[in-house]
């Protein structure tokens, strides 16, 4: 700490390249900490996947009331999970840039396609278990898209963007 205080008074008249290089190295080290923190734990994406899968699989019951409750529950639980994860990480950042937005759009599109196929199979073809299968498929897909987003966020933090 003494070195910090000494610097306050000094005019930084002469900064050696070695000192500047070590300062840049310290900056890189500092960035890696929040970058590691931002990686969500395994339970986070799995929980989001289970919520999405549960909401889709629940359509197998053919009950509009249950469907409405599951959508409301899914929304509230996702919000709570995201809040908990942000509290855990201790940092807040803009999650969406061009690439993460594209991944999110891909995730939504994939789940929408799964639901559309399940609707066609169940309602048009009368295939039982279509929503259940779609729900089960939604779990690993949500985990994969979530981890992909984490990877991009981590790279962005390391780059200091």
């Amino acid at each position, binding site marked *: 700490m003494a070195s910090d205080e000494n*610097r306050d008074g000094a005019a930084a008249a002469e*900064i*050696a390249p070695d000192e500047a290089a070590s*300062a840049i190295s*310290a900056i890189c080290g*500092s960035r890696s900490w*929040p970058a590691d923190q931002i990686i969500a734990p395994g339970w986070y994406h799995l929980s989001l996947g289970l919520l999405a899968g549960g909401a889709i699989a629940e359509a197998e019951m053919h009950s509009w009331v249950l469907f409405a409750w599951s959508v409301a529950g899914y929304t509230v639980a996702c919000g709570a999970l995201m809040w908990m994860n942000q509290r855990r990480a201790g*940092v807040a950042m803009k999650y969406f840039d061009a690439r993460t937005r594209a991944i999110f759009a891909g995730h939504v599109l994939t789940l929408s396609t799964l639901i559309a196929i399940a609707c066609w199979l169940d309602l048009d073809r009368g295939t039982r278990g279509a929503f259940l299968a779609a729900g089960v498929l939604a779990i690993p897909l949500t985990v994969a898209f979530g981890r992909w987003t984490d990877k991009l966020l981590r790279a962005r933090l390391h780059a*200091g963007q």
Partner: protein
Amino acid sequence: MSTAPCFDEIIHAPNRLQICAILSAVDSAEFATVRESLGVADSVLSKHIRVLHEASYIEVHKATCASRVRTSLSLTEAGRAAYDGHVAALRSIVGNGGYRGSSRRRGAPAE
């Protein structure tokens, strides 16, 4: 877009440089998170935060949640500009093999 190099004595202090580096990468970070990242005591971090706050480089937000006060920190626009300029100055020092005399303290009266 490149930032004009501008050495900043306030930011150059090692701990303050690390604080700015962390905050530059995020919108805001909690006090405890920054303290853990730096591995310093509360009092040490508070002192550096006060210096940066007095220079208008960081904002301190306090929120009460479940009867606990949570303090979060974020860089101001001026702080971000000063940090970017300082990093550019450091890079130019590394590139040019040295830096002599022309540093200035942002926010201080011109000499």
